[in-house]
Every structure is written in structure tokens, then in C-alpha cells.
């Protein structure tokens, strides 16, 4: 760790590639890209001098599932991402250094690569009791996070915790855990939500930033468009069953065995933006819907507070009762309908009473039918 000055050229040489092959690669790249005669030298120069991007990976309130996912990346392999593409200077979960040595790296990186390193945050800071619910190296995590963010080039928010808050921020949120964009307001933040995010999405984001030296295009909610611009539902292989009106009605019914759409079982695919139905998991083996379980919407804002994972019409808590939109609507309609019937009844009774009392043919009056 701490070898932040290693260039791409150093890495290439370390992997046993000769200088001759390196220059061949640069020439071939320049030629195939149709660049001018000087380009090969420029590419070689860039690779020889450009240091790998230093990355600081911090952990707040979380379960480390993002790291667990990250180390299973297949394309690119996580070893390539960690050892060749970036310079992972600090990651307290998987680094060799510990204690004061580890903490010293934070200070060192902050001083040496001011405004150049990427801050990757897994988990989020709790704000209650001055941040005492998450102490990291003797200090509240929120303070370390703000300090390291101040000198970062950009911030990556790994997972639902850092992006939205996740389970620790679900109601009633006793520790007042907040997504990192609530405490880091002066840096661009890439949100890579999911619980955890897909491994290839994580390494894909890292690859993009290191290759192009800039942040990927983000959507309205700060997520990279290339992985989060479509819903699970849009690319789901069970979508034809949805359009046909073929649904699993119960977990063990024939439709479940036939692999029909899980919409009625509360699948959140239609409201979840992620790449699961295209990239899939564990090297493209499967994803929840393929395994017969609906999507729980883990990459969406506040997915713990959106009612049951197994209801299509989720419950609404704002009304103080556990009921879905249909139950609330039907109850209200019945109450209003009943009130109208009662009102109509009173109207008729009052009207009859009034007419028998007046029994008048006075022309200048109103139509004589009004209640009074």
C-alpha cells in the first residue's frame, strides 16, 4: 500500500511485458485509432508518466456487502482493478496495515494527492449524538469523512448505505444515519446504489474513471447512466409473461414453475433502476428474478420503507394504518357513498315535511321542492 506513484507503465512492466512490446502496443493503438504520427509517443508518454489514481476506501455504518460484492468482480477481475488500474491506498477492511500505520496513510494521501485522489465511501455517517454511533480510529466517522472529502477529486458512494441511507436510515432511524451527500456538499458524488451493487458495475465505474480521467455521465439522482438508466423490468427475460398477462399467483403454483412474471408477488422490477437483468450476478450466473424471487428494489431510495417486498400495492404508513391504496380508497369511497345515501335520505324526508306544511301554489316562490 502507499505505492501511489506507480505509473501504468510500471504496472505493465511488472506484469512481464517488455518495453519493446509496450511500444508496439502504443503504435498499434495510435494506428488503429487513426491518430497522427506523434500520437504513439504521446500515448507512451502518458502511460509512463501518469500515476495510477489513488483511491481511499472508507467504511461507515454498513455491513461490508459492497466489499464482498466488489471482490467477486469477473470483468474486470478485481485483482486487475485493485492492483493495476487504481492505487488502493487505504481500505481498512482488506489492507495489510493496521492501527496508527493505517491512519497515517489517510493523512499522507490527503497531503500528497490533494485534489487528485478518489474517495470511495461504503456505508454512511450517523449524525445523532455528534456522530458517536460510528467511531472509526477514535474519531466520529462523520468527521473523518468530511475531512477526507475536502481534498478529494471526486467521491464514489458505494451501495444503498452511502447513496440513500439503507436499513440504518430506515424509520425510525435512531442513529440519524444519512446518505453521504447530506454531509459532503462540495464535491461531485457518483452514486452506485444497490445492496450490494453488482460487482461488475462497481469495477466498471472504477475502470471508467481511471481510463478517461473523468466522471461518467450521471442521471437525475446522481447514478451513472450507463448502469442505472433502465429498470429491471425493461430488460427482464420474464417481461413477455407480463405483457401477456401471465403471473405467478402463489409461490408454489404452476405459473411459478413455468417462470411467469412475479409482478403480483410484489416484484419491484418495474420501479427499480439497476443492471441486474442484463449484467446479472456472480459472473453472469443469475439474478433474483431468474432464481424465482421478485426484485426487492434494493438499489432504490428508501427501499426498506416502501412497504412489503411481496405486495404489488404497497402499504401506506402516512395514514397511520397499515393499508394499501386500494383498501384506503375503497374504504373512503364506501364512507362517502354511505354519507351520500344518508344525505339523500334526509333530503327526501325534509322535503316531504316541508311540502306538506306549505302545500302552497304561490307562483312567486321557488320551485317549492327545496329542503328547509
Amino acid at each position: 500500500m502507499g505505492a501511489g506513484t506507480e505509473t501504468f507503465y510500471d504496472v505493465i512492466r511488472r506484469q512481464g511485458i517488455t518495453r519493446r512490446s509496450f511500444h508496439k502496443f502504443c503504435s498499434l493503438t495510435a494506428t488503429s485509432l487513426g491518430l497522427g504520427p506523434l500520437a504513439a509517443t504521446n500515448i507512451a508518454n502518458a502511460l509512463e508518466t501518469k500515476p495510477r489514481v489513488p483511491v481511499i476506501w472508507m467504511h461507515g455504518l454498513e455491513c461490508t456487502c459492497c466489499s464482498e460484492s466488489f471482490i467477486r468482480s469477473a470483468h474486470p477481475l478485481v485483482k486487475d482493478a485493485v492492483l493495476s488500474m487504481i492505487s488502493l491506498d487505504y481500505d481498512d477492511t482488506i489492507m495489510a496495515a493496521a492501527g496508527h500505520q493505517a491512519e497515517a496513510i489517510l493523512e499522507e494521501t490527503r497531503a500528497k494527492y490533494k485534489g487528485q485522489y478518489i474517495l470511495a465511501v461504503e456505508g454512511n455517517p450517523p449524525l445523532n449524538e455528534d456522530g458517536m454511533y460510528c467511531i472509526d480510529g477514535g474519531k466520529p466517522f462523520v468527521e473523518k469523512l468530511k475531512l477526507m472529502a475536502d481534498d478529494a477529486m471526486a467521491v464514489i458512494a458505494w451501495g444503498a448505505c452511502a447513496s440513500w441511507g439503507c436499513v440504518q436510515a430506515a424509520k425510525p432511524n435512531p442513529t440519524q444515519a444519512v446518505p453521504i451527500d447530506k454531509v459532503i456538499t462540495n464535491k461531485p458524488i457518483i452514486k452506485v446504489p444497490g445492496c450490494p451493487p453488482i460487482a461488475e458495475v462497481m469495477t466498471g465505474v472504477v475502470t471508467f474513471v481511471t481510463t478517461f480521467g473523468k466522471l461518467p455521465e450521471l442521471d437525475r439522482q446522481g447514478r451513472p447512466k450507463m448502469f442505472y438508466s433502465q429498470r429491471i423490468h425493461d430488460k427482464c427475460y420474464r417481461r413477455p409473461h407480463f405483457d401477456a398477462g401471465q403471473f405467478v399467483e402463489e409461490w408454489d403454483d404452476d405459473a411459478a414453475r413455468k417462470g411467469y412474471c412475479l409482478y403480483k408477488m410484489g416484484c419491484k422490477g418495474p420501479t427499480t433502476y439497476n443492471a441486474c437483468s442484463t449484467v446479472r450476478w456472480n459472473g453472469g450466473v443469475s439474478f433474483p428474478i431468474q432464481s424465482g424471487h421478485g426484485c426487492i428494489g434494493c438499489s432504490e431510495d428508501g427501499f426498506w420503507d416502501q412497504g412489503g417486498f411481496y405486495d404489488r400495492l404497497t402499504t401506506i404508513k402516512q395514514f397511520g394504518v397499515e393499508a394499501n391504496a386500494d383498501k384506503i380508497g375503497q374504504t373512503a369511497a364506501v364512507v362517502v357513498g354511505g354519507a351520500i345515501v344518508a344525505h339523500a335520505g334526509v333530503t327526501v324526508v325534509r322535503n316531504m315535511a316541508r311540502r306538506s306544511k306549505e302545500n302552497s301554489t304561490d307562483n312567486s316562490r321557488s320551485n317549492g321542492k327545496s329542503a328547509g
Partner: protein
Amino acid sequence: MTEIARVHGVGDANGERAKSLQTIYVYEAPVRIWHWANAALILVLCVTGYFIGTPLPSVPGEASASFQMGYIRFAHFAAGQTLIVFFLLRLYWAFVGNKFSRQIFYLPISKRIWWWGILYELKWYMFLVKDPKKYVGHNPLAHVAMFSFMLFLVFMMASGMALYSEGQGIDSWQYKIFGFMFSIFPNAQSLHTWHHLGMWAITIFAIVHVYAAVREDILSRQSMISSIVSGERLFRDDIDDFPR
């Protein structure tokens, strides 16, 4: 000059004067067409919307042989967008139509008599006064109801288009215009839920609306149902409401 000649309007042989009734053209043709188109479209939207939330029992056979959910959603999207087109035309008519065509889009909250009118109408519905007042356009209470309904419609149109834009993709013009709804409701599931609740609110509005229209048509001093068919409002008596 005989006594009977002084009686205003027509009278019978005994000098009994017949009521002279006023009829005023209130709802112009575009307003009436909009009203009934809206009614039909909302019916389609509520029925298809309900079945999108709670789909029909599963269809057997090959998926390629059926497009049931697809057709239901198509009907919903088509009706929704037609409703928006009619709404935009109706907004246009608010500018070029007569003064009653503008009424449901604003509330005259600075007018004391309007507030008094709301109170009076409430009393009429609570059986506390003998007769309602006469109004050429909507009475103040109905005015509030219609205005709130317009707000509801706007919410339903905006949320509906935002949900539709999810299928069209985030590069679509629908998302560019209505994507802001996801800043208010970051999780689309909650926007679905509120859109669904909106359906029930509109259903309840329709129930109250039909009851009030029928009741007013029978009991009030002016025509109701025939007015939204012919556009003409007939007043059933010639008594001044606000003596000068």
C-alpha cells in the same frame, strides 16, 4: 290602461302572472365536449388503472399468444394522453372562451361575497337554509370542488406521464419534462402508490359530483344536468337573490 296590462310578462285570464324565466348560455360547446370526453376517459383510466395495479387472473398458454396486460396498459396510456390533449385544449379555451370557461382555473379568494357564498352553500347542504342561491356559473362551493379537481388532474397527468416516461427511457422528452416528479418522489414505487390513491380520489370526486348534480337538478333554483348537455342554464324563478 287596464290593471292587467301592468303585469309584467304573461298572465292568465285572472291576472295571475306567469313566472318570467331567464335562460343564459353558460357552457360553450368546447367546454361541454371537454366535460363528456373527460368523463369517458376517466372511466377508461380508472378501470384500466385498477387492473394495472391488480391484474386479472393469469392467462394460460404461450406468452406469444396473448397480449392482455399490454392492451390494458395501452388503453391506459392512450386514454391518459388523450386526456392531456383535451386538457390543453380546454386551457386554451379558458383564454378565448366566455368568462365562465375560466372559472374552474382560479379562485376569487379576495372577494368577500364569494367566501360568504361558500358558507351559504355549506349551510344549504347541511339543511340549515331554505333555498340555495342562484348562480350563473358554478356556485362558490362547487367552484372550490372543481378547482381542487383541476389540481388533482394536474397531479395525475404529471405523475402519469412521469411513470410513462420510465418505459420510454430517460432520454425521452417525457422524462425531460416530467422527470421532476422523481425529485419529489425519489422511489418510483411511492409515485405509483400516490398515482393509485389519486385514482380513488377521482372516483370519490365522481361519486360526489354525480350526487350533487342530480340533487341540485331536482332541488335547486336552476338547471344542472341539461345545462352540461345544451349549455343553457335555466333559472326556475325570477326572485332577486341580492336585492339592491
